[in-house]
């Protein structure tokens, strides 16, 4: 159960290997890696700057991780979220979940990224040719997170 909020890039392969090392009961490992896209709608993006609320971020992510562990039998979880300035193609976030069986790992990974997007206090500012602008929250993300209120896994 690890949570990291940091500016540095991460190596998904090395992180996943470390997460499952020495835990032979794990039968499935599911990971999600979020990347910076080069377009927002039809607007080209030169870079993103991510800011967050230190303290509350870690607390919210910890609560999400605890909720995932209440809903599914998990052997290991990892959330890494980057902050600072990122360019198209850069990794933003890694969510990884390991369990004895794949169903729990798939469902819990999806749950964590869906809820992270609507609850963890991060904000993105995009650099466009028209200047900087703050990203607006998407109704689709709220709907994806609300889905999990009806499904207990």
């Amino acid at each position, binding site marked *: 159960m690890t949570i990291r909020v940091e500016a540095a890039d991460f190596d998904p392969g090395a992180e996943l290997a470390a997460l499952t090392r020495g835990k032979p009961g794990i039968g499935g490992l599911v990971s999600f890696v979020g990347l910076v896209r080069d377009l927002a709608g039809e607007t080209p993006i030169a870079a993103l700057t991510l800011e967050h609320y230190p303290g509350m971020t870690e607390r919210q992510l910890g609560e999400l991780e605890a909720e995932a562990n209440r809903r599914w039998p998990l052997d290991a979880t990892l959330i890494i979220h980057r902050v600072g300035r990122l360019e198209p193609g850069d990794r933003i976030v890694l969510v990884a979940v390991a369990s004895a069986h794949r169903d729990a790992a798939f469902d819990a990974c999806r749950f964590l990224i869906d809820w992270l997007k609507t*609850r963890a206090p991060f*904000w993105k500012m995009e650099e466009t040719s028209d200047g900087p602008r703050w990203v607006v929250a998407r109704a689709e993300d709220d709907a994806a997170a609300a889905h999990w209120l009806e499904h207990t896994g």
Partner: protein
Amino acid sequence: MRLLYFAWLRAKIGIGHEEVEVPDHVRDVAGLLAWLKSRGPGYAEALADLRVVRTAVNQAYVKPDHPVGRDDEVALFPPVTGG
């Protein structure tokens, strides 16, 4: 009371955090937001549409009727856009 502002709320208000002495009649989040709006044009603009303002007291999400006191850390920010 310690106040924190993030993203465009910080940009509009012009500062990221401040310590304030709130008047006695401010008892809850709704009262705090109403009082803040009266503190200047930047606050009024940042808090013009409360549908896009989220509030956390001591790092937990709260609703407008949540009580606030002088020892609390209160954060105001837009809907989150991480991930």
